[in-house]
């Protein structure tokens, strides 16, 4: 029953995702307040945006409310899970936790702890294993190591955080590995047989996508050496094997080969974009829509929904950003992933 409940609710909620018409309308809004006003009328965002003052709302506030809506949706659906909120479903909280820790590390390194605090989603405080105020108060990475000493992150991160010249990229990779390991541990505990393998494949596919995006960014924006790029990748693969990546990175223009590896014909996006990153994300979006429609696993269904919602929130952030910087709607639309 419960299994069906999460799957059914996830599918029902996916029907409330923004449509092409909604995006077209949002792209043509001329202020953040107008976007917020429009989101007030959409079922997934109505509650979070209910009391806002459209005239006074600013970009960061709107983005936080969108993230809050996504989180509330997760909380609403996950409580129907048979394994309870601390079971396999907690992967999503773990993901937020690891993302926030990565942001905290970056904030400490760049000295922008205040910005970290501004954007920190305070509603997750009670669900994560570290105190955000203490983390944001860390003046150095070794101080951060002290603060997280009582958490599962101590063992994999301590040495790197206390190093004389810490490598930020390796720390971020280690945090991501922590997340994947945690997810796999939960999968091993809660699922068995075919479902266990299916869920692992599902997470690995997402790792493939993250690795690919990392490759695309580092190759085109930072022109890093293949060895350096490899250090930034999460050492978990499904289709995107290390050997294939190595071969691709040796090419003069590895982007098409890398994209092809991931964007298979079966899940090829209907919209072909000139931007490789958009192609990967669009492919991801279609994959998760497909999985949500056919999956019999509640974890897979909810995870797919959360990924779709994440894509939607990224779209909204881009729209708000476009409005904030006065970009023409057509320009912003190039980055929007939609059905």
């Amino acid at each position, binding site marked *: 029953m419960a299994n069906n409940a999460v799957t059914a609710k996830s599918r029902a909620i996916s029907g409330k995702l923004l449509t092409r018409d909604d995006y077209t309308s949002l792209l043509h809004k001329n202020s953040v307040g107008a976007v917020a006003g429009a989101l007030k009328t959409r079922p997934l965002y109505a509650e979070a945006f209910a009391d806002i003052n459209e005239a006074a709302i600013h970009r960061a506030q709107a983005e936080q409310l969108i993230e809050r809506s996504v989180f509330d949706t997760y909380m609403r659906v996950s409580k129907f899970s048979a394994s309870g909120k601390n079971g396999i479903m907690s992967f999503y909280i773990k993901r937020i936790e690891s993302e926030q820790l990565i942001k905290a590390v970056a904030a400490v390194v760049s000295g922008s702890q*205040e910005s970290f605090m501004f954007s920190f989603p305070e509603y997750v405080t009670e669900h994560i294993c570290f105190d955000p105020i203490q983390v944001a108060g860390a003046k150095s990475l070794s101080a951060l190591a002290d603060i997280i000493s009582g958490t599962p992150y101590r063992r994999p991160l301590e040495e790197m955080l206390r190093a004389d010249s810490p490598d930020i990229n390796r720390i971020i990779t280690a945090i991501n590995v922590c997340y994947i390991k945690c997810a796999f541990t939960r999968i091993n505990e809660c699922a068995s047989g075919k479902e266990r393998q299916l869920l692992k494949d599902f997470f690995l596919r997402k790792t493939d996508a993250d690795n690919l995006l990392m490759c695309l960014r580092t190759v085109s924006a930072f022109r890093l050496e293949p060895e350096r790029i490899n250090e930034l990748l999460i050492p978990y693969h499904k289709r995107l094997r290390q050997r294939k990546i190595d071969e691709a990175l040796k090419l003069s223009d590895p982007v098409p080969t890398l994209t092809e590896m991931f964007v298979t014909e079966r899940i090829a996006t209907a919209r072909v974009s000139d931007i490789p990153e958009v192609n990967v994300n669009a492919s991801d979006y279609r994959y998760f829509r497909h999985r949500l429609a056919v999956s019999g696993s509640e974890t897979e269904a909810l995870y797919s929904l959360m990924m779709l919602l994440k894509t939607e929130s990224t779209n909204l952030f881009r729209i708000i950003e476009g409005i904030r910087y006065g970009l023409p709607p057509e320009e912003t639309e190039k980055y929007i992933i939609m059905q």
Partner: protein
Amino acid sequence: MAIEKVSLVLIEGSLKKVNKTLIKCCESGYFHINPPPDTSGTELEAKNLKDKGVYERMIKRTKALADFLGVKLDENAAYDDIEYNVSVDFKKYLDSIDNMQSSLTEEKMTLNDELRSKSAIYHNLIQFSGIDVDLAELLACKYIRARFGRIPNGSIRKLDFYADKMFFFYPFERKEKYTWCLYLTPAGDANNIDYLFNNLGFERTTLPDYLKGNSDEAADKLLAEMDTYLARIEAIEKQLDEIAEREGAKLSKVYAKLVALGNSYELRANVTVFDNRFHFTGYIPSKETAKFKELINSVGDVTVTTRDVSSDDNAPVRLKNNWLFRPFEMFVKMYGLPAANGIDPTPLVAITYMFLYGMMFGDLGQGLCIMILGLLLTKFTKAGLAPIITRIGFSSAVFGVIYGSVFGSEEIIKPFFHIPQIYELMGYKEPPEDIFAVSTMLLIAALIVGIILILLTMLVNIIVSLKMHDLEAGIFGASGICGFVFYASLVAGLGCSFALGIEIMSPVYIICLVVLPLVLIFFKEPLLELMENHGMKNEKRTKNGGNLDTGLKTKLASMNGGAEGGEKKKKSVGSFIIEGIIDLFETCLTYITNTMSFLRIGGFVLSHAGLMLVFSIIAGMFEGVGSVIVLIFGNIFVTGFEGFIVGIQVLRLEFYELFSRFFKGGGIPFKSVSIGSKAA
């Protein structure tokens, strides 16, 4: 079977009087206006009146004034005592009302704006209840900046992180998502702290600098000010009420007159003007002629001429029936309005509908329930079906007494087939046990009823067709004289042979009364032509009467290249014979199917008894209250379900088996003009 006699009315008069005349026509309640004649292509220099609504602006202005004064306008108010007739008079009156109320209304609007503004400030201020400092002094501080507003609840905990920053945070009331708060910061740090709070989602509320005293005192002062405004608004409203009381009734009358004048402009499209005099025509019931003339003559400088038009095809039709039959006009109108020179079949429909319904659904108890329902619907709704329900309920009750059925029980009243004379007449030696025992007789009776009704409608058709000079339908049609003789003779012959054992169908009988009518029907076309050549008038063949069928045939003929006026294309002998045989076969088949169709009367009598028997058996399976509940449910179900179906079936018999034999439709409905009527 009455169609009310109408008279054609020609009204002409001075152009100045056109509005007043039209209003009088509307007031009469029985004037049907005709569209204007088409004068194009003639030498007459006529024009149609269709001015733009000059009163529209004044109607809007009157409505606006009534809104300001709170006067409820009634467009049906009697306005006889309003002497204004031209727009200037109305304008002067409306100006005078405007002068009285405009300054007061403007002041009221200003005060309302002020009140709204103060109310918004008050609602913000009460969120900060408990500030024990003079707000004016706080807001005027030179070195300290005070910021009032609200912050998301989630951001309050984050403030701990900024504990080293230069600000003091005072939370007030905590709501579901936000906390109302105040923070103070040195003027020099204000920009940084404002940035910080802005990033934490703080929404600032600006309080005006005229607020004096602490927050509670300032709120009290605001309340007192709002009370003053309210008192002044109340005084203004009182003054406006006085004006409304003084002028309200007159304003409403003026409005009613303006609406009437405005609406009468719509009717002006039907008016033709020659030589500065207006002309229009219409119809009135003949009996109202004297009264109508008197009404229109009261306008002055207007002449009314009337003419009897009882044989005019184009005259509008107004049905006239007594209280018993009138509700059944609805069924007739559903089928189509009878032609002006035809007959009104409402009484026939009313009698046969009640009779057939009662026969098919005869139950005293259920019939009385239906009758009560009809009475209640008539009293509390305007449903056209309600009086019909009352009447058929009564008929059902009467037949219930005959059948001896009360809520399905046949033990309370003695049924007709238990009367010795009747069951002996039906050939039984002992009274039959129940209605199912006389089912064969019942079905035969249903057929007899059907035959009688078919013959009756054939007679009606013969009368109507001959009255309308439609020889084809009246003499040679399936429901004409030939059809009547054929059907009646065949039924009488077969009836006597099978039922009474009297053999009357001799060869002479068959040739003269059965074969000859069929031959005449077969040769109707050449015979009609022959009769026309001998000077007999056949309206249907020379003119497109009201009959839709004829119209269609003529259209088809003209499409096939036939001449206008119904002139027929010559047929080949082969085609004539084949068409004739098919027509004849169809006619004979129709007689059989139409007669058999009436078997449903008997069928429904039996189905009613059967359904009630089922429920009484089910009720017998229970004891006490259960049995009563089943019987009540059964009666409700049968009354609702079967009562409804029988209603539809009877209507079907009326429309398909009876109406199709005699009804000549195509009548134009008589529509009395009223204020607001559109052009004809």
